[in-house]
């Protein structure tokens, strides 16, 4: 059984934050969703202190083997999340990780303290890297800003903290080392890569927020390189993600040092993608001699 920062997981496949709404999925699929839950740990959509409507539509653009999104972190805010979403997410058959984003370090500290006080929560992911929102600076692109943010919130909760890194950084490994040095128990990557598309006839930006983040198969080689660089730079476990669509993609990320793997955009193509990828990964692993198997975390 994989262990992620001290939390026992039944398997190595998580969902990527913001790519699976277990509450909406339960409305669409009923309890059958829980009987064969596609992930071994559930990561919530990123929440913020204040409720957010998200960006104006259109929010999606399909690219060659991928997609751009400018969702803009719609969420009910901290109080709404704790009152309405957390009790429902606590009924999922797997440990819960809550993703949080603060627009300043005080907000982030408040989120970590409030979420960390809830016994339903096993892990907290610090989203330092969302490129869609005007944070002024992108904390996750800068080692010093990342270290300061993690240091500020470290004492607010006893739960493991996973720092989600931005791929839009000059040196993700340096940011990862800064997060680890400031007390992060793990790091996760990659988030979406900034991108843009124009309306086919007007040549105006297509997305309501003008630019967005690229995900899906198109980002897979970028993710593999960054996960390899980060895993080589830190001791803490690495959650690898970016374009994972098959057991082989998951095995690749594990081979370069990820402890566990998250599935994002592929779940849009099939809500059961996580389960299929787990099965494919298990088949790949059992087909190889034990000595060759990658680190399981």
């Amino acid at each position: 059984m994989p262990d992620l920062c001290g939390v026992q997981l039944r398997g190595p496949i998580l969902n990527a934050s913001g790519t699976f709404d277990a509450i909406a999925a339960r409305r669409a699929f009923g309890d059958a969703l829980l009987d064969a839950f596609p992930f071994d740990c559930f990561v919530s959509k990123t929440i913020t202190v204040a409720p957010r409507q998200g960006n104006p539509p259109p929010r999606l653009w399909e690219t060659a083997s991928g997609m751009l999104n400018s969702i803009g972190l719609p969420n009910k805010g901290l109080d709404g999340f704790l009152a309405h979403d957390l009790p429902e997410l606590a009924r999922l058959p797997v440990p819960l990780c809550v993703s949080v984003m603060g627009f300043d370090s005080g907000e982030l500290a408040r989120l970590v303290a409030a979420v960390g006080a809830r016994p339903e929560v096993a892990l907290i992911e610090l989203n330092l890297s969302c490129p869609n929102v005007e944070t002024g600076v992108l904390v996750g692109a800068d080692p010093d800003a990342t270290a300061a943010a993690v240091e500020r919130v470290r004492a607010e909760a006893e739960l493991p903290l996973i720092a989600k890194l931005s791929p839009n950084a000059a040196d993700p490994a340096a940011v990862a080392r800064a997060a680890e040095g400031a007390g992060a128990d793990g790091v996760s990557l990659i988030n979406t890569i900034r991108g843009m598309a124009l309306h086919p006839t007007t040549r105006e930006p297509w997305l309501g927020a003008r630019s967005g983040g690229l995900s899906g198969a198109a980002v897979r080689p970028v993710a593999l390189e960054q996960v390899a660089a980060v895993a080589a730079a830190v001791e803490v476990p690495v959650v690898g993600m970016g374009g994972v669509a098959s057991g082989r993609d998951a095995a690749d990320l594990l081979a370069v040092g990820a402890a566990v793997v998250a599935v994002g955009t592929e779940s849009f193509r099939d809500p059961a993608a996580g389960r299929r990828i787990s099965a494919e990964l298990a088949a790949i692993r059992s087909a190889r001699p034990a000595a060759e198997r990658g680190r399981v975390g």
Partner: protein
Amino acid sequence: MTDDRRPRTLAPPERRIAEVVEARRLGAYDLIVARDAIGPANPRPGQFYMLAAGERWGADGDGRPYLPRAFSFARVRPLPGGQGADLSFLLEDVGPGTRRLGELAAGDPLALLGPLGHGFAPPPEGRRPLLVGGGIGAAPVLCWDDELRAEGVEATVLLGFRGAGHAAAADLFVGAPEVCTDDGSVGRRALVTEPLRAELEADPAATVYACGPEPMLEAVRALCAELDVPAELALEAGMACGYGACFGCVVPTVDGYARVCVDGPVFPADRLVAHA
């Protein structure tokens, strides 16, 4: 915005493979019938499926289509035994996804997820159903008309099309829908909202159900608001997932942004905010 009183048949929680059993050209549209042996026999009219060709999806040379595409089912025929159904889809070629699906032939695999979203709610006592379809929006109107007929209700059906090629879709209807075309090649030369106004002014004790292009839906919404007639509108939006996972498919409503895939695609017209 959640209104779980509106009809919804649950989908199996995974993408499955159906077999195309019929594929043909219908005027300007393509019609495919898929044998979905695993899914429910009773999707609700207005619900939709996410479809992708089972093979060579993404083979148009530019890495698209990548995501599945949303389609209302146009007709359902339960399979013997109570499980599974033959599902008809009416397709309009507007890009790489619809083109690839239109190329499917009998025997080909079709990947599908659904039924998704909410369907049309039955009309309240004392109100007659008035169904309005524009273009490819005829698809959910067809299965809603089928279902009302099966319950012994003969609804008034008004359909609008660009011209004769598209109006071929009217031939799928069991009754005799009133057809309007932009060019007058079939039926009346009018916008479908003209006969709709006449119907509602003659007898406003109706509930309107409409699906079609945005300007048509906006005209229906405004007309029904003016005449104080309840209406349910089936909307479209660009979708990545179809089951509430991505938050990509939102439309503005009086309660803020709502996801078309899980909060719709059928919305009560009075919940929607007029588009600028």
